[in-house]
């Protein structure tokens, strides 16, 4: 592996890590603040990708597809929180796992009814379809770089919103002590609605912007869900910083695993997770269990 190849792999790993971060940050926020294990989170990613495929076909532009599709998915997320998840706040995690498992069954079947079982692809937008030459025979596609930059922007704004705004303060307070936050007069149910819809939006956006580099196919939500859980568990549940570090670790481990150990590629990330949990059972940035 020469230096240019190595650089390409690093960039690919980072770009994959960024997409994972968008999905995993929603998952970790929903768990950390609402105490909900949301197995249906991957479904938002999948629906994002399918909606992007559909609306890009209709409007001819991915950007338009994203702008039109996002509010739609946010609305679905809001309704699900209101009419299903909100009954489970005081129940055991087990029932949350079960209910959201039921949601997965429904979503996957809806996807089959609406779009069938074919694989689709979304074209890369014209302006971003070029590539940057690295050496004589190595180039890096502009669109992948664009994904990384957009995701970096979102990660930064997420960091600012959570660290610097009043809403962020409520979210952090809700994560550390729900009852006390409520006692101080914060309407925690509204915060929950916002967090859940935000999580759905982040996952859907990740699916939309990632659609041109990965195919759009049935079961893509399940795949990303499991990997996002690995990210969240490595980083420590509820920690955004942890989700970021975890996503980068998994993105790079997966990319380099495929290059260096192709026969064990899919196992590398799970092995990494087992190692991290052995070393720190609560994840890299998680609070120790009480």
């Amino acid at each position: 592996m020469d230096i240019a190849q190595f650089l390409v792999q690093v960039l690919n790993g980072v770009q994959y890590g960024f997409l994972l971060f968008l999905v995993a940050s929603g998952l970790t926020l929903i768990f950390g603040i609402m105490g909900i294990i949301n197995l249906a989170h991957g479904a938002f990613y999948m629906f994002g990708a399918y909606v992007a495929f559909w609306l890009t076909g209709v409007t001819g532009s991915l950007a338009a597809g994203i702008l039109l599709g996002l509010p739609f998915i946010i609305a679905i997320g809001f309704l699900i929180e209101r009419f299903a998840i909100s009954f489970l706040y005081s129940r055991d995690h087990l029932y949350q796992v079960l209910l959201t498992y039921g949601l997965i069954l429904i979503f996957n079947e809806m996807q089959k009814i609406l779009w069938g079982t074919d694989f689709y692809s979304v074209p890369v937008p014209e302006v971003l379809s070029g590539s940057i030459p690295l050496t004589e025979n190595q180039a890096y596609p502009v669109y992948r770089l664009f994904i990384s930059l957009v995701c970096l922007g979102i990660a930064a704004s997420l960091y600012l919103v959570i660290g610097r705004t009043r809403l962020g303060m409520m979210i952090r307070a809700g994560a550390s002590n729900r009852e006390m936050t409520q006692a101080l007069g914060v309407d925690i149910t509204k915060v929950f609605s916002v967090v859940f819809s935000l999580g759905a939006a982040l996952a859907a956006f990740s699916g939309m912007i990632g659609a041109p580099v990965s195919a759009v196919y049935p079961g893509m939500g399940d795949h990303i869900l499991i990997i996002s859980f690995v990210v969240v568990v490595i980083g420590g549940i509820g920690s955004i910083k942890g989700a970021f570090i975890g996503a980068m670790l998994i993105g790079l481990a997966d990319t380099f695993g495929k290059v260096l150990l192709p026969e064990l590629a899919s196992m590398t990330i799970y092995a990494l997770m087992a190692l991290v949990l052995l070393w720190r059972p609560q994840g890299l940035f998680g609070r120790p269990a009480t």
Partner: protein
Amino acid sequence: MTGPWPLRLTLLAAVGGLAVFPWVGDPFYVELVIHLMILGIFAMSLDLLMGYTGLVSFGHAAFFGISGYLLALMTPESGGLSIWLALPVCLAGTAVAALVVGWFSVRTSGIYFIMITLAFAQMAFFFFVEHQDFGGTDGLFVADKPFVGFGGWQLLDLRDEHSFYFFTLGLLVVTYLLLAMILRAPFGQVIRGIRANEARTRALGYPTQRYKLISFVIAGTFAGLAGFLEAAHTEYVSPSHLGWHESGLVLMYVILGGMGTLYGPVLGAFVMGLLHDQFQDLTEHFNLVMGFFVIAVVLFLPDGVAGLVARLGRARGGGPADPPR
């Protein structure tokens, strides 16, 4: 059998009903009930972990699948292997796998335990998917059913559907009795203690990690028994046997049936399995119906089917009390 006498009678009647079923039931349903009984064994094994030890494993299907793969790999093309060799090897192999996974996993708890068991199951899943020696995504065929007998003398012909039925029913009852015995023994009291309050159980001087590990290995081994039966019955094993959908399904049987009752999860497996079969005939989108069904159960039947039965029993002024929680 354990428990109050109305429950014992009901369970005996259920076993009696299952015992006469092959003579009255349609061959298709005999086949289906074999499958449901196997899932019942599988679900009971998970109940030992979830309902009694308080460990929610999201990777229990790994042991189900590993056992099936062991059988498929061991069985020669030339004909059935003696069950006295096949079954112990499958169970021992699964127990070793459970020991390794458990050794890592019992150090964590709660959501982390859920995730680490899932991670190990995914590792096993991808291991079998990516190795062509193990059939890759296509899976493996089991060349022939195991041979039950001594020397050349055959005790039971598993190729015969009725014989396989009674073989499975026998093992279902044996599994129930063995697990009930384990739970009545001091060991069972300790793991219940761990579920109720681990710190206090540890303070009483019990090495709780070791107890959790032993419980994990026992549960894994019984899942291996179910996997052995499934592979022998269908003569086929594939990576989907150890996928996370399978782990999710068995979790659902346990919760749906009612955790911490042993017979509840078997009931859950039967209810879900039959519904699955019925919806499959009605509509190709049966997963949609199953999804709504699961959500309805979570929202309206918090203690599962066994809890509903107990509640109805209480409403009539009798029946078993709520299990302690």
